């Protein structure tokens, strides 16, 4: 390479510096997306996927899957938050709606973000959400409450040994990440935009 310096020490320094810069970029810009992709594939950490496009499938009535719903409030999130029904039994392939109930009990307007996590991890890629409040932030004015719906389908290909799925939502306070106007417009739209009452 002609543009490299003549002096062998300087040449080596340039090359090694390039390696250093690459590793730095690798750590910040490549490892996180790589890790996310990896999590998505393996279901590591129970990260559930993005919005699912429902396909027409037969409901497998021969199998029953117990789905448990739990809720955790992260530190600094005083809202009341929890599933309306704690357990449902579903057949693979059938779409089910469940609700979480939420109430902003504080005197402040706030924005919450629910983060899902599913166990066993193996089931994460077989658990499809066609609509979920966790896809967006939820803004609630002081004292307001809301019903947060979630539609899901358990895939027929769910491994046979999995009979129970536990879906946990942790609610975080993300008010600081948004401006006052954003909060108000979010609150006006309501907790969730349903594409259709499926």
């Amino acid at each position: 390479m002609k543009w490299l310096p003549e002096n062998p020490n300087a040449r080596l320094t340039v090359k090694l510096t390039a390696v250093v810069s690459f590793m730095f970029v690798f750590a910040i810009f490549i490892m996180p997306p790589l890790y996310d992709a990896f999590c998505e594939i393996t279901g590591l950490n129970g990260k559930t996927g993005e919005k699912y496009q429902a396909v027409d499938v037969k409901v497998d009535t021969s199998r029953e899957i117990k789905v448990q719903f739990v809720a955790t409030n992260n530190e600094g999130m005083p809202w009341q938050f929890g599933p309306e029904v704690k357990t449902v039994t579903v057949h693979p392939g059938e779409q089910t709606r469940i609700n979480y109930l939420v109430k902003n009990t504080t005197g402040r307007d706030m924005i919450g973000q629910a983060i899902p996590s599913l166990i066993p991890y193996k089931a994460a890629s077989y658990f499809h959400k066609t609509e979920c409040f966790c896809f967006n932030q939820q803004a609630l004015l002081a004292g307001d409450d809301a019903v947060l719906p979630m539609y899901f389908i358990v895939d027929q290909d769910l491994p046979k040994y999995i009979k129970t799925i536990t879906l946990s939502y942790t609610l975080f306070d993300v008010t600081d990440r948004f401006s006052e106007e954003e909060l108000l417009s979010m609150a006006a739209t309501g907790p969730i935009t349903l594409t259709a009452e499926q």
Partner: protein
Amino acid sequence: MLKTARGLCAWLLGFAVMLSSSWVLAEEAEQLKFNMTRGVTPVSQDIHGLHMLMFWWCVGIGVVVFGIMFFSMFVHRKSRGVKPANFHESTALELTWTAIPFAILIAMGIPASKSLIELYDTSESEVDVLITGYQWRWKYEVLGEDVSFFSNLSTPRDEIDGFAEKNPNYLLEVDEPLVLPVGKKIRFIVTANDVIHNWWVPDFGVKRDAIPGFTNDSWAVIEEPGVYRGQCAELCGKDHGFMPIVVEAKSDAEYRAWLDEKKAAAAALAELTEKTFTFDELYAKGEEVYNRSCAACHQANGEGVPGAFPSLKEGISVGPIQNHIDVVVNGVPGTAMQAFGEQLSEVDIAAVVTYERNAWGNNMGDLAQPLDIYNHKQGK
């Protein structure tokens, strides 16, 4: 020179003998606490077996390697007038001592892999417990049973500070233990509220990171009734060493009775919320709650720690009472002040607010009733 080498040999040999004998002793007298517990679940017993297997492999390899080394150090000394050999290469030897360890590793790895697969099989559980780590306490929720409670360290402050004699369960005791049935497959679902914690009970062989925003699971079948103690095993801040775990394993009937008792207690508490308390009742109860939940940061004398935790002899406890209640219930975002609304009952919060407003010479004279707290929590 000769003396030194001989001394080295003798000392190391003595050391080795001492060690191996101590391990043998440990086998006989578990209470000496030399060794890993055998535990009371299939997983913990598997792990103990693996641990001992690995230990004896290591002892065996150590005896051979150190044996040759000490033999050489003793015999091949210049002071004995030996002439050094000059060999320095042998491909055959190198291959041998690459291949043999390789074979040993496979012998170690196969049982380990089997145990690991068993350890990961959380399916078909009969009891599911949601465990949430908080700075610095645990919350337990028995899924499907409507039982949910916090479990705090109950060791008195005086024992920690050395003003009182330490009891045998020092730092390994809690106010509300988790009760579980023996002989049933229990699944622990672990998460956290703030930072990463780790729920560890050695006797169960269960150790799982509790990560905020994510869930993990693990399982146990407890084979013997008893009281099992553990600790948080991931650095989680100041009081990482002060958030123990206590699990009482009981018969199924006793477990059922405990669930009923918990539900009854929750109902009674709800009733208490309606009750009006006298100042003295609130103050006495408040002192107790304060020492358990607040004193770690704000100190027993209410003065806090300058720069870290504010003094309660000024500020909110001597300001408007609604404001005071709000801080305790909802916390202060971006600071170490947590929202206690979920962790403490209405009665407890009313009591502690009353206490803080009237202790250490604050003399505000007012008080909060549980109903005030309930209304505040409802956003009224």
